[in-house]
């Protein structure tokens, strides 16, 4: 029991802890065991399914917007796990048992599960239907997501009947996200912004809308790792590092857009002067006299201001790059 297993120099797992871990693992294995069948008693009281499945539904629900589901992955008979796969529950796989719905009329017509904000079906019930199949997508942490907490329905974003689900397309996804995220829609029009407006990026290029373990539901483990996935040239490590750049790109940049070049949070040279105070030019009080037409147009104010000389603001790999000028 006192034996210790060494995994390199960083991880030690005692026998006691191992025993506990195995116990938990045993429980977890049981979660993955095949689901038991519905008990006979439950079946007796279970709501009735329709007699002929989709053929029953399509007698009334033949609108083109609904029938377009047959152009989607949900309605592929060749996929045994899809709702329209052979032997599956077709429309009722998602909308629930429709037996009563099909046999009642008028005001007394029994409801089925419907989707979307105006459907009348509670969001939790809607989402449970979707998650029954899709929660297993292992990139997702839906239950811990801000969207779940805000009572967002899957159908608020996804159009499962449409031939093209806009939210899954890079060029059109933001149209859906901006419906609620009005601030980000405004940000996308800022003069310096990632190309969402141009349809070359999607919100999901950085964010995992179905939940992740990071703050702001990022796809990668940290802000910097998210940025590096497209900007690997900033990853370094450099001989001379710029400390804030190693820690958090968002200390200087606003990734949702800015009115300042390079999506900086503040204009240079003032942004740099919020950290640098060395006597000499880092601490000089630059003013409008330094612009064109002023008394003394200045290299430290115009064009790239500080970066006119300190060009390697993300770090320098030059032996003589101490001042980030090389």
């Amino acid at each position, binding site marked *: 029991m006192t034996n210790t297993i060494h995994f390199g120099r960083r991880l030690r797992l005692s026998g006691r802890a191992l025993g506990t871990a195995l116990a938990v693992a045993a429980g977890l294995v049981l979660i993955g065991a095949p689901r038991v069948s519905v008990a006979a008693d439950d079946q007796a009281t279970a709501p009735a399914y329709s007699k002929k499945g989709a053929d029953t539904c399509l007698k009334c629900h033949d609108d083109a917007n609904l029938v377009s589901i*047959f152009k989607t992955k949900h309605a592929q008979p060749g996929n045994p796990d899809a709702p329209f796969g052979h032997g599956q529950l077709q429309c009722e796989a998602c909308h629930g048992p429709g037996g009563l719905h099909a046999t009642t009329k008028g005001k007394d017509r029994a409801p089925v599960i419907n989707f979307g904000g105006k459907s009348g079906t509670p969001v939790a019930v809607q989402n449970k239907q979707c998650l029954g199949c899709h929660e297993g997508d292992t990139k997702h942490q839906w239950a811990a997501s801000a969207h779940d907490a805000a009572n967002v329905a899957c159908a608020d974003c996804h159009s499962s009947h449409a031939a093209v689900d806009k939210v899954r397309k890079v060029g059109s996804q933001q149209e859906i996200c901006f419906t609620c995220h009005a601030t980000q829609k405004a940000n996308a029009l800022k003069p310096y912004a990632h190309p969402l407006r141009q349809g070359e990026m999607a919100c999901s290029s950085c964010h995992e809308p179905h939940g992740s373990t990071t703050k702001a539901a990022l796809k990668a483990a940290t802000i910097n790792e998210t940025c590096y996935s497209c900007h690997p040239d900033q990853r370094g490590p450099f001989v001379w590092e710029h400390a804030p750049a190693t820690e958090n790109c968002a200390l200087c940049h606003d990734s949702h857009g800015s009115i300042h070049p390079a999506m900086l949070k503040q204009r240079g040279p003032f942004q740099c002067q919020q950290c640098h105070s060395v006597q000499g030019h880092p601490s000089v009080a630059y003013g409008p006299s330094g612009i064109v037409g002023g008394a003394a147009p200045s290299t430290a104010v115009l064009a790239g201001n500080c970066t006119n000389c300190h060009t390697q603001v993300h770090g320098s790999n030059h032996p003589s790059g101490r001042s980030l000028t090389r």
Partner: protein
Amino acid sequence: MNGQFSGIRSRNVLLAAAVAAILSPIQVATAAEVDTSEWKCTQCPFQEGGEASVRLGYGDVSEDAAKFADYTGLDGGGYLIADIDGQTRTESGWYLAYEGRKLGLDSRDGVMTIGKEGVFKASLSYDAITKRTYDDTMSPFTLSQATGNQLSLPTGWVRASTTAGMTQLASTLKPVDIGHDREKAGLSLDWRLSKSFGLFANFSREDKEGNRVGTAGNFTTALQMPEPIDSATNTYEFGFNWTGQAAHARLAYYVQKYDNQVNGVSWDNPFTTFSATSGRMATSPDNESKQLILSAGVRLALDTSLGFKAVMGSVSQDAALLPYTITASLSPGALPRASLNGDISVNHYALTMSSRPFDKIRVRGAMRFDDRNDDTPAITFANGYVESDMGRMLASVTPQRYSYKRRQGELEGEYEVLDGIKLFVGMRGEDLKRSNQDVDKTTEGTGYSGLRILPAAGVSLTMRIGETHRDAADARTPESWENANFWKYNQANRDRDFLDIKLAWTPAESVTLSLDGSAANDAYTLSPYGLKEGSDRRVAANVAWMPKEGLTVYADGGYQIMQATQTNQTGTPLSTWTAEHEDVYKTLGLGAKWTNIGDKWDVSIDYARAESTGEIDTVAGTASSFPDNTTDFRSLRIGVAYRVNEALRVGVGYRQEKLESADWALQGLQPATVATLLALGADPYNYNVDVISLSFRYDFGGPKSQKGE
């Protein structure tokens, strides 16, 4: 069992049983339990065979404007409109799907996927992105085509101490566009081995080529130049995923290799300052990032879910170091080693929890740990280094390595006090330990409370108010040359209060409205100098009205104001100066979409306007103000499509986009305007572009009506 798990005590057996009991799955009907023998789906119009749509046409862009073409690829002149999408399916589930967008432009993309539904999928993708920065810039430099990294001045160039003395400048300036292209090709494979087990592999390669604004300083002078870019990034990811009844896991191995073809850029020095005739800087080094990523989730009883993610990674780089200087006479000798041998470990562990043990109570929480540990062996330049290729600094120097460890925890509880009215309270904590920086450790605590009102389907209002306190006072050791009274804003004590409001409302069947607002105030009360205070207030709203089938009218608008105050000290004796910033940003959007008018016409119109103003006022003895930096963006898009028959549609489009901007950093700045700065002469962005288009879309195959079995 004892024989198999000798290390497990009886209490662990009980634990296992308890875990299993909690995890008992929720029972729902499955297909196997329903009699579907009569479910023939004879009315189901399953897709079989092929269908495709091709859109071809011609467009014209009225003028070349880098900012307009940025990312859009819409350079001036005519262009081909070409889009394609389609799919072919078989009854057995095999399919081929393809899509190409903007194929006639430099900014184009496409994807082709082949697979068998539910079993296998392979995708090939291509994506090109255009980055256009400036098209009005000029430079006397010429890039060597042989080496790709040497920028030379023209023969006969007269070096001078100021730009005015560069007598060859005016006659040798050449137009040079600044920008680059990215081209990315990808291959991804998904193979589902069983209902619960699948494999995946992804590969992509991105090539980036062009230039950007490069700069170089020589103590008292500086220059801008078209710095070449030529790099390739290969990204690999492969692994497997497993899905159980109430749990899932995914294990992936991720590698990204960045390969920079430009190892250092050299240039002729146009100035005579300090006599160096040339300079050379390093470029981003090749690097390799590797990560092992494990993520998992489990749904337990009591509506409880746990999520877990572990990322164990490393970053390495061993790009060859450049010599200390290109100025041979200054060389302080041999380098201590040929490369940095950079080695960083990056780890991330996170656990999330969400539980709704009772209908009215929900608890959410998370714990995270991030670790960036720079294991690079120290490199000491014992014989000093060369500053800006001109002067040898004799002091021995050892670059600092920066590591950090960040721990975060958060917990939120929510209670439904009345039907549809939920109160919540939450707290967050973070401590961040840094090495070799002013402050070893900052701790931050946040408390907030709020209200969620969900009175009915279609209405959701969330309000949250809270405070954050960051404490950085424990130990502070600023670099000896820095002002001891000056605090870096990310390592300073800070008090923040904040308020968020979010509303989503469907007041009528045909109307939806959303509102998003927030306000935050920061106070760096213990910083004598540095960033002193800041605030950010913003509100934005969308409203959409659907008065009839196929018609949507919408409007949106936003307003944001950000303010900040910073102070610093300069001179001998020291005197204090202050800068106050105020950025205001406003947007307005209006539009309508009307589809299927008379079964023939689709019409859309969209108007957007965005204005920004940036003010900076300084007080350094006397008060002064920079001119406002402004932008005024206007966009109008009109589209009309006519359906000639079931297969053919004709579309006409008009787009007008205008940007006017004023920027004191660029206004009036020509290559020789400043005596000590040889600039590229970029102007603030101003364009007014019209785009017209005519296109034809033809659908092949059309919707199938083949009935099912």
